[in-house]
């Protein structure tokens, strides 16, 4: 008796939740482009063994989906229809093994993965064969594959490099994207970032109300706040002023130039509100997911991937432009 009711409630919630939401700007009148989401694939259910708690996700040009699972420490591959086609890794500290898998992205030939306990980036091919480790002098807090031999990384450091670095395939720094806005305090320069598809970068700050767009000439085109711009609250814990609110958890862009930023605690629906911006940073609308997600990944065919069932499910949505 309880299960059907729960399923019904979940279905109603899903219908109500996925769609335009003007919570950020009640007086906002959207321009022509109005977006909506339609779920077209779901991988992993509560009653199967496909996924336990996935973290990093990447999708190649063919639509194959790669995901890191931190419960069984595996790198898993699914085809575009959601069929499991491979797995690699496993718990350990050997080559290609994981203890705490985190980030993942892919280029045309390679997959780039991180582990919280490893200073560097593990490289696999699309057949999930481990190739090598690109060593970094810092733990990688975010990465984006730009090509087979160019990876943008942000390292976590307390007082050191305050920039997104562009590394080659051997880990050599070939460019710096400088001047991240680092307000006083710990972890204030924590960011997620993505290519804008036009040679530039989109940067969303985790602990600052700030989204930026950078051009390919390392020039900041714009920087905007979407939650009032107030500084994030901090709490003095163990001698450290830890930021205790999150603003933006992830950022991505589609082929039309729309920018999708996943809101954190500051959003009306934390982890569920995706703020959609045009290429100039103006707010288009807010899409609200049925469940909280830690990521909002858009593939080359403009499909959105988010978390479901607390990490046991990958949900893929078609983005509809009306």
């Amino acid at each position, binding site marked *: 008796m309880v299960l059907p009711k729960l399923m019904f409630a979940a279905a109603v919630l899903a219908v109500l939740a996925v769609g335009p939401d003007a919570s950020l700007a009640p007086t906002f009148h959207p321009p022509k482009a109005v977006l909506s989401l339609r779920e077209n694939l779901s991988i992993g259910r509560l*009653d199967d*063994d496909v996924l336990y708690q996935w973290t990093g996700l990447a999708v190649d040009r063919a639509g194959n989906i790669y995901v890191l699972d931190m419960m069984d420490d595996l790198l898993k591959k699914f085809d575009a229809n959601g069929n499991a086609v491979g797995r690699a890794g496993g718990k350990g500290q050997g080559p290609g093994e994981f203890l705490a898998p985190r980030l993942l992205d892919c280029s045309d030939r390679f997959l780039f993965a991180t582990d*919280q306990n490893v200073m560097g980036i593990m490289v696999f091919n699309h057949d999930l064969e481990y190739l090598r480790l690109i060593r970094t002098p*810092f*733990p990688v807090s975010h990465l984006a594959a730009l090509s087979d031999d160019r990876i943008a990384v942000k390292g*976590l450091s307390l007082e050191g490099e305050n920039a997104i670095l562009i590394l080659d395939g051997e880990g050599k720094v070939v460019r710096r994207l400088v001047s991240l806005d680092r307000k006083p305090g710990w972890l204030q320069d924590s960011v997620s970032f993505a290519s804008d598809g036009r040679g530039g970068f989109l940067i969303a700050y*985790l602990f600052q109300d700030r989204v930026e767009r950078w051009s390919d000439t390392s020039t900041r085109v714009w920087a905007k706040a979407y939650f009032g711009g107030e500084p994030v609250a901090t709490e003095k814990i163990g001698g450290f002023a830890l930021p205790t609110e999150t603003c933006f958890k992830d950022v991505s862009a589609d082929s039309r130039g729309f920018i999708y930023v996943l809101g954190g605690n500051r959003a009306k629906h934390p982890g569920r509100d995706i703020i959609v911006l045009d290429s100039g940073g103006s707010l288009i609308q807010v899409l609200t997911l049925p469940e909280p*997600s*830690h990521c909002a990944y858009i593939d080359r065919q403009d499909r959105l991937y988010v978390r479901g069932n607390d990490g046991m499910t990958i949900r893929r949505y078609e983005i509809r432009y009306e």
Partner: protein
Amino acid sequence: MSGRRLRVRFRSVAILVLAAGLLAVLAPGLGAGICEEAFVRCFYDPDIIQFFNFMGSGGIYCALGYVFCRTYVEPILG
């Protein structure tokens, strides 16, 4: 639900219950959320700090865990 899945679910629930119990004891003194608590425990864990200081990264490891917790874990634990 398969046996493996059940075991994983049981382990997750057990960890959550233990974490919640621990937090219930510590919370009045700390006034902090689960990610802050995890950070403090990490930072004052002599084994972790000894190892990562040897690696030259000190508390950065714990900070990385804190960032991950705020991004990933917090929405699950509410």
